[in-house]
């Protein structure tokens, strides 16, 4: 049995629409108009224990809604979910003790107190034994290098430190499944890197199942072998990140700078001309033809500079989003 299985999950919302401007306000004062939006539309997937999965999609794609369904916060319109054998929406306390949902922008720590005070309260809330609490806290504090800030008021911590403290609070009870919603949002590059390596380490060390959403493709690229891509509530892709990359890297791009102006028609037999202004050109060719075409260009044209590139992962993803297919 898989750790987590989702079949035909669907969630519809009613959204309140407000018209713009003062007249709009007055209109909606008397009558509110609603419309239905399909936040999640017939999604199915399964996840095994210990997997670290990237869950990607543009804003409003339905990522957070799916995570909320998985953690039992919202009741699906239809479809079935099983997490560790539980139905999340029952919000069984044993189920809640085995998961954690970390939302990057929402704080659960007591703002006016040092994080340690909140941890002690969570210890009782999650019914964590003294010994477990001690070892778990020690381990997390060391992994995240938090020793000095445990006794500093949360409001005085930097955003990065706060996020780390937040993570500790969410992990004290050693959840088997971790849902991370934008854990690196708003953090600087160094801190992003630290959180990333922590997530990897946590996954490896505790064999925890982690489902991660992120705006930053770097998070996903570095951490996740498998990705699930959704847009407009629909599942577009579920599989290895490397597969989708290699599928989209059947093409290479050759950028050329010529010494003098070249007619666009001369380049048509090389490949698909993406851009051309006489001097600078970008031509797309299939992967196996790339060497041949490069030497053809070098021998037949006055080339000043030439580079061959693969498309970036961000580009691939955004092509998928805009074309709605993989």
């Amino acid at each position: 049995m898989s750790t987590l299985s989702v079949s035909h999950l669907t969630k519809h919302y009613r959204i309140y629409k407000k018209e713009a401007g003062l007249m709009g306000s007055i209109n909606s004062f008397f009558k509110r108009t609603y419309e239905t939006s399909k936040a999640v539309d017939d999604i199915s997937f399964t996840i095994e224990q210990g997997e670290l999965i990237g869950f990607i999609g543009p804003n409003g794609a339905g990522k957070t809604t799916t995570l909320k369904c998985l953690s039992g916060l919202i009741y699906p319109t239809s479809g079935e979910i099983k997490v560790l054998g539980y139905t999340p929406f029952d919000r069984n306390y044993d189920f809640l003790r085995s998961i954690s949902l970390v939302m990057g922008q929402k704080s659960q720590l007591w703002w006016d107190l040092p994080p340690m005070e909140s941890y002690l309260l969570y210890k009782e809330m999650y019914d964590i034994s003294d010994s477990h609490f001690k070892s778990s806290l020690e381990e997390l504090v060391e992994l995240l290098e938090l020793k000095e800030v445990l006794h500093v008021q949360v409001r005085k911590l930097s955003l990065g430190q706060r996020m780390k403290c937040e993570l500790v609070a969410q992990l004290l009870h050693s959840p088997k499944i971790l849902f991370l919603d934008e854990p690196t949002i708003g953090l600087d590059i160094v801190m992003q890197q630290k959180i990333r390596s922590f997530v990897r380490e946590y996954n490896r060390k505790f064999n925890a199942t982690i489902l991660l959403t992120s705006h930053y493709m770097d998070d996903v690229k570095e951490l996740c072998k498998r990705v699930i891509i959704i847009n407009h509530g629909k599942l577009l892709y579920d599989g290895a990140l490397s597969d989708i990359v290699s599928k989209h890297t059947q093409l290479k791009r050759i950028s050329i700078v010529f010494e003098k102006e070249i007619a666009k028609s001369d380049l048509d037999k090389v490949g698909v001309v993406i851009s051309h202004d006489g001097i600078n050109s970008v031509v797309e060719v299939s992967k196996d033809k790339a060497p041949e075409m490069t030497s053809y260009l070098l021998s037949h044209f006055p080339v000043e500079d030439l580079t061959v590139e693969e498309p970036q992962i961000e580009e691939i993803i955004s092509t998928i989003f805009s074309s709605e297919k993989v």
Partner: protein
Amino acid sequence: MKWLRMLGLYFERVFEYRLRSFIWLLLPLTNNMTLILFWNGAGMNTSAVSSYYILMTIGGLLTTSHVEFEVSEIDIKQGQLVNYLTKPISYYWVNFFSEIPYRVLQAVYASILIGALLIFFPNALKLSLNPLHIPLVIFIFVLGYLLSFTFKLSLAYLSFWFKDIHGLMELVTIIIIIFSGGVMPLPWYPKILQTISNFLPFAYSGYYAITALQGIVPLFGLFSIVLIQCVWLGVLLFINKILWKNGIKEFTAVGQ
């Protein structure tokens, strides 16, 4: 034009929170209705009593400013004030206009409620206002609001110096309730409290405005109300200006 557009924006915000503002209306209404019931039980079931409390509700809604919390907590303590300092507009007037929609909406709600009330209890409200005095009474209400607004704003400015003034604010709220006839009509108070009230500005915000509205004040009395209101407004504006000038220095010096 600039102010007009701002006013439009503020009205939009108010409409977003129509239910919220309805609750703000219920607070004084509940309180004052309870008092009418109380006097009923004490055998004072006169339309003078009910008129007084009904008008106090409206007077309070129209003339009491609630500017203090946002200025003290959000603008000064959380530092949002910076956003205003970089714009070429007067902070005093920004706050003044941002509150007007609330007062207007409350007045609309209040008129509807009181209209409904009068259908069931036609004797509950008694006005004997001379129509010729109406412009003057409106002027008294405007001055009353300005008094309350300037006072509350000045109070909020104390946040420039003190970390936590909410205890003081509560105390002031209580003092205002007592000395502006919030418990019962001022002539019913013990002599000593009446005398103190005469030397404080609070009754000149709502209380005298509603006595003017009731039509129990002669023309000469109306003018003396306006005169005293103007004197108090002058004093408060002066204090407000000094507090602002020094407070801003304090604010920028701390480098919020």
